[in-house]
């Protein structure tokens, strides 16, 4: 079944969570973060989408940054979650999982023929 185009509004809601989660896994600079998101399946995401999210997370003290000199190229600004960012991520993940379960329950009831969310991914 061909994948339908992704609604950008769906991405807008989860992108901060994804950014925090990836930075928890490993600190990254902006462009590297974008390539990681693309590798994980968000193939149409661009730096223009991610940079404003990074700016807001930094403004809200959910991530911190440091400049790292590079031996071959300009210095890079690496981001990492703060303690507040880690707490926020935990809360956001719990909320997301609750939402996914609710949405899947409604959709399964309303559209019996549609494929349900697998237990592993909920």
């Amino acid at each position, binding site marked *: 079944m061909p994948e339908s185009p992704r609604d950008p509004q769906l991405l*807008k809601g989860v992108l901060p969570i994804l950014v925090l989660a990836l930075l928890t896994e490993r600190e990254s*600079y*902006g*462009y590297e973060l*974008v390539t990681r998101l693309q590798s994980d399946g968000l193939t149409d995401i*661009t*730096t*223009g*989408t991610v*940079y*404003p*999210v*990074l*700016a*807001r997370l*930094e*403004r809200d003290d959910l991530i911190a*940054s440091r*400049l790292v000199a*590079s031996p*071959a*190229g*300009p*210095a*890079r*600004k690496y981001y990492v979650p703060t303690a507040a960012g880690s707490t926020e991520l935990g809360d956001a993940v719990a909320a997301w999982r609750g939402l996914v379960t609710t949405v899947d329950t409604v959709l399964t009831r309303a559209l019996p023929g549609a494929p349900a969310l697998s237990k592993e991914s909920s």
Partner: protein
Amino acid sequence: MTTTAPARPGLRDRLRRDWYRLRFELAMQDYPPKDYRRIARSLTAEIDAAAADTGMRQALRDLGSPRRLAAGYYAELDRERPRYWDGGIVLGLVLLGAWVCLLAYWGGAGDTLLAQGGGTVTLDYLGAPTTITATDDELALATSLTLRGTLVVGGLAAVGFALGSRLWRLLPRRTRQPA
């Protein structure tokens, strides 16, 4: 494609980057100034870092248009900002309108005086006494700066600016408390 880039981009790349930044700055004019400066510094560092991996052209292409990038930053604000340039335009239109109305007032009064054989009349235009003279030899307009006139014109301009710029967006927002 990974390219090995010098610590500082070449002149052509810097010009491309700075042209992009100028257009971005224009689009961000209504952004809180302190936050904008931080974003501008960060964006320059990010562009240079991305350019080291993909080249400056691709790095700027990936950002999208400056206006669209600015819209992304505005969308991350907690609230909408006043639009001071729009307010300035409305203020200018209000003042231009007042000036055009004055000329029309002058023209109309002058026509009436000439139809009656010429003369002088003193009228009140937006709180300022305005003397209009129209004869076969002379067509003149004299107005004086008064406190009342200044307040009326200034008030109209201020209201126009406030409405055009949506100045009420600066007011603290009342948040609804849960019951």
